[in-house]
């Protein structure tokens, strides 16, 4: 057992989980406590209920608009593959569940390790593909900021190192798992302060957009 692993399982995880929880709660709570907007314009006539508008927008954004279907096909499929793969990897592996159990106090059934490994490989490749797409698509490239690359890169690291650790490739297992845990620590520390926060906010912001759009302009 290397000292690196002790550091990773001890102080590194402790500090990064603290920063993660602090950051996420700080951002979420202060966002919800923000005073109501001053809206001078009157609402459109016969506006749907806010709830319906919000949920509608969330559902609508799960698949691309017909008009952009062909252009957005890659981002659509790749995005779904990546997110499902990541969810399986993070929440399906026995070792990960033990981690959550320690923090949350409860666990759940794990999936076969080989299946999780397959999901991990898919996740890794689709993550890399999305980064490549971001770099090669001229419009996307202009839109991208350092935050986008950091968010992507910091997600690649834990997936890649986790795969190496489960496959026992390259270094000794204790070094691999230490590096894996440390990469998760960096991910956790950055999470609340960049676009990774979308994991918590994605449905909130989409609903908000839906509600706003619903009351704006005139009915066609």
């Amino acid at each position, binding site marked *: 057992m290397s000292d690196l692993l002790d550091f990773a399982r001890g102080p590194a995880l402790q500090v990064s989980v603290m920063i993660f929880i602090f950051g996420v709660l700080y951002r979420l709570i202060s966002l919800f406590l923000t005073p109501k907007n001053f809206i001078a314009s009157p609402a459109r006539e016969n506006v749907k209920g806010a709830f319906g508008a919000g949920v509608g927008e969330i559902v609508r954004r799960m698949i691309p608009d017909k008009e952009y279907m062909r252009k957005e096909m890659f981002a659509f499929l790749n995005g779904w593959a990546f997110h499902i793969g990541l969810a399986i990897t993070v929440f399906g*592996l026995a070792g990960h569940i033990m981690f959550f159990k320690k923090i949350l106090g409860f666990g759940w059934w794990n999936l076969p390790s080989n299946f999780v490994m397959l999901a991990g490989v898919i996740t890794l490749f689709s993550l890399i593909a999305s980064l490549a797409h971001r770099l090669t698509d001229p419009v996307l490239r202009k839109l991208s900021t350092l935050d986008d690359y950091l968010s992507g890169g910091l997600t690649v690291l834990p997936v890649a190192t986790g795969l190496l650790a489960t496959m026992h490739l390259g270094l000794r297992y204790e070094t691999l798992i230490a590096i894996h845990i440390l990469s998760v620590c960096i991910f956790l520390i950055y999470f609340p302060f960049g676009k990774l926060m979308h994991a918590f906010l994605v449905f909130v912001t989409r609903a908000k957009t839906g509600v706003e759009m619903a009351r704006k302009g005139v009915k066609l």
Partner: protein
Amino acid sequence: MAKLFKNMFATSESTALTLGEELAQKGVSRRQILKFSSYVAALMALPASYSTAIAESLSKARRQSVIWLSFQECTGCTESITRSFSPSLEDLIFDFISLDYSEALMNVSGSAAEAARKQAMEENKGKYIVVVEGSIPLDKDGIYSVSGGHTNLDVLKEVAKDAMAIISMGTCASFGGIPAAHPNPTGAVGVHEIIKDKPIINVPGCPPIPEVMTGTIAFLLSLGKIPELDHLGRPKAFYGDNIHDRCYRRPFYERGEFANSFDDEGARKGYCLFNLGCKGPVTYNACATIKWNGGVSFPIQSGHGCLGCSEPGFWDKGSFYSPLSTPTSGLGKAAMGAAAVGTAGAVVASLVQRKRRENILKAAAVPKPTETKLGADDE
């Protein structure tokens, strides 16, 4: 046991003979030495053709003087090695060495024992092997462990000075072991932290596997050199693989089949013990292959996870039962604290912001906005 004593404390006049001659007198044939040698070769994963060479050099060698020092320890390592055999091949090792000093096993005591040690050191200057069992306390000049008026620290330095090599037997001598566990009240350390100028072989384990101890000594005797060691000074032949890689329960790990308590369905079916805190994946030892008690079983086979006893600091790595993928300690309180601070911070910041906004609105004398019909406008 009687045979053991007879063998170990062999009379000193016989040291003039070669081992071959001496053993022949005792009726130990060359075939027996050859059999032992092929056993050692197999144990150490040496090329099988080495066995002839080992047998030859063993027969030509003199009895090797060994001084066994006991420091802060439980004598479990001695127990392990002396109980290793039904009188068989392994105990031949005691025909090859002359155990000149061992507090646990020798007949004499007091100044006579110390005299035996001094005599052995004098007669075999630069040629004797020192086996150390137990850690050495450094605090308060080592006063925590004293024998015959001398601290362990002084004895170790004195004996190590003219030694050929040192074998740190067990985790205490290798890495400090249990006496060095937090808060390490005696300032215990392993041998390699004190002796820097002699070859040291670490044979950790709590206790080490008997075959690993005999194998290491036999290698040193027969080939006259230190076996290949890993980065922690352990013979690679025994500590080269981790338990997890050699574990017969490994396929369950791959399939994601785990025991989640010691008496659940998974435990009864012999599933992988990772979730019960098994340290096999980060522990390097030969338990999964050589096994214990003459190859009968080893902890995982008996249904308990590996404690990692051959690794430095295994006693201070959090609970034996917390899985490797979990934080070692204190996360619950830390998480609660972070949550409290995060919430409080957000509330305070929002209140400040609201106050500021009200002030700005007041200063601009804008009438307070009427609530729009859409209640969901706020985020």
